[in-house]
């Protein structure tokens, strides 16, 4: 589709679309935005693998598909293994994988399918050095099954199995740092990204295509449905997550950490700005918020140190 000239000037996103309208995501879905960007960057020279997750539905039921790229639906915990198998098959067939004109093998799994049930297969994928990209779209709970906590759910969050109640039964564990587990494998490339910063995300996608070996991107993808947030606040929430250092953007490559702008250059914004927009945090006491705030700042300090020492 040709865009008007004045629009072209402002957009740096590729105009082509391989993720079509008519998909079945909820309003304001961060994951759907993410899929759109991935397909914009890789075009249809991509083979997607999606385990059981929201994106199974988003892609469309048979006989419909929102994807103009080969797409394979698999079991919840198998993403890492299946993309390994696909990559091996492509190699055996003599197809070019990655590079400018090569095929990109992409696993696209949620936080539950990655941080919990799919962690073993992810570890295998990284350790064996498969030439593909694993993207964990992080909406911080099992959203497709109806908002249950995952190990990627933050401290203090309401979910349907951390419902608050009289006993103040909320999530009491900090968010699992999956990216740290990934980096422990010393992969070719690992990065965090956010749907609020598509240019940063797309640059990282492009980089993953040029680097030989396994890559991993943890994409922050707000879920208005599960976060009990207005559907027009997705981008704002994703942006605040970065600005508060709740979800800083950084890259890991060749043993080096690099914090990416627009992560905070000075003091991060107060976490309350991020919290107050979301119904899932409404049961938190002042003390709870303090606990989460301290965790965020301590993780942020740790990341800055890593970037300083291994920069």
């Amino acid at each position: 589709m040709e865009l008007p000239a004045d629009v072209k000037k402002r957009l740096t996103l590729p105009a082509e679309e391989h993720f079509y309208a008519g998909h079945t995501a909820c309003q304001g879905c961060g994951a759907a935005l993410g899929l759109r960007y991935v397909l914009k960057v890789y075009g249809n020279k991509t083979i997607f693998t999606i385990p059981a997750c929201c994106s199974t539905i988003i892609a469309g039921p048979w006989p419909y598909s929102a994807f103009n790229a080969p797409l394979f639906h698999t079991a919840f915990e198998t993403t890492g293994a299946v993309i390994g198998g696909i990559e091996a098959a492509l190699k055996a067939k003599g197809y070019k994988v990655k590079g400018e004109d090569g095929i990109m093998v992409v696993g696209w799994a949620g936080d539950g399918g990655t941080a919990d049930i799919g962690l073993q297969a992810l570890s295998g994928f990284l350790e064996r050095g498969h030439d593909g990209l694993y993207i964990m779209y992080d909406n911080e709970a099992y959203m497709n099954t109806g908002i249950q906590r995952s190990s990627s759910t933050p401290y203090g969050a309401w979910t349907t199995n951390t419902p608050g109640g009289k006993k103040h039964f909320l999530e009491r564990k900090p968010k699992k740092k999956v990216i740290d587990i990934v980096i422990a494998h010393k992969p070719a490339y690992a990065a965090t990204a956010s749907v609020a910063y598509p240019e940063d995300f797309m640059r990282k996608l492009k980089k993953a295509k040029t680097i030989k070996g396994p890559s991993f991107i943890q994409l922050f993808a707000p879920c208005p449905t599960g976060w009990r947030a207005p559907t027009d606040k997705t981008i704002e929430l994703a942006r605040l997550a970065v600005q508060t250092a709740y979800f800083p953007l950084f890259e890991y490559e060749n043993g080096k950490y690099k914090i990416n702008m627009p992560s905070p250059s000075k003091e991060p914004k107060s976490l309350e700005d991020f919290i107050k927009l979301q119904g899932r945090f409404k049961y938190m006491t002042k003390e709870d918020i303090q606990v989460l705030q301290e965790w965020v700042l301590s993780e942020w300090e740790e990341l800055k140190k890593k970037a300083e020492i291994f920069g």
Partner: protein
Amino acid sequence: MPMRKVMKCNEAAAWAAKLAKPKVVAAFPITPSTLVPEKISEFIADGEMDAEFIKVESEHSAISACVGASAAGVRAFTATASQGLALMHEVLFIAAGMRLPIVIAIGNRSLSAPINIWNDWQDSISERDTGWMQFYAENNQEALDLILIAFKVAENERVLLPAMVGFDAFILTHTVEPVEIPDQEVVDEFLGEYVPKHAYLDPAKPITQGALGFPAHYMEVRYTVWEAMENARQVIEEVFDEFEKKFGRRYYMIEEYKTDDAEIILLTMGSLAGTLKDFVDKKREEGVKIGAAKMTVYRPFPIEEFRALAKKAKVLAILEKDISFGISGAVFADAGRVLVNEKEKPILLDFIIGLGGRDVTFENLEEVVEISKKALVGEKVEEVNWIGLRKEIL
């Protein structure tokens, strides 16, 4: 010229894989199957086999990687047993539902608890409803042959279903026997290259595989798996014929031994069939009208062949190394379905035998015959009998 070598059944299975030239092998070690991928690694290391070998971190990932590879359009192979196959369980359904003709070699082994590494068929029998074809080998040669046959049937466009080939743990996996290794050129002619028209994950022709199926469509997809399994009966016969022409060895869905005038027929699968033939010879010398039958194909169940066999017997005794708790052995339950509406049918008896590597002795088989004889003369006997139980430790 075909070459004859003395080898373990696991090696024979690896040779079959080498001859079938899968492009991807993904495997995880488990007793008693470990030697299959080990031997394949050696073939690859020595440049005798050209395959991507993915050393996965679990059997769940082994079958998942095979599924990914097969979905991307190449021949894929793995080997496992017991807990490993059980771990693959959910992905087995996916492979069948997506019509991916993967072949697994199974060193048939018991399931925990208690932990036990020895032979029975509980592992593959427990996967009977996954949509995989199942073949059982009597000896090492059969294991090699049936793996080639399994690929040929699985990849047939009228079938397109995955297949498992079982051979008994230790009794076969670790036992050396002479095996004839067919010529590569003849195997190439027999199998050809796998070129799927339905599963290829190619960006040049984007398709979605395994999309969400609503209630309006799901049943029809399952029905096509049913149809494919029904088609497999005919295709298996055709492939058995072609195999005989190419390699000179004949296979049957059910192979009979001295059944023509038999009053009692003992039916089993796997290596026990060999023991039964010797036992039948012995009993024939004693004047007992007895025969034996070996079921080589368990899924699809050889319904017509089984009915034809049943017509010959007065008592049909099923000897099986598996148990479906709460009813009977699985083969016996299947046999009931096959015979239930037949006007003339034999007395059908079930014998649970040799679980967890318990040797099956002639003494055990005598007990089977004694119970069968009682039934023959109209005495009431149990329908399901556990043979060789050590009652003193119960």
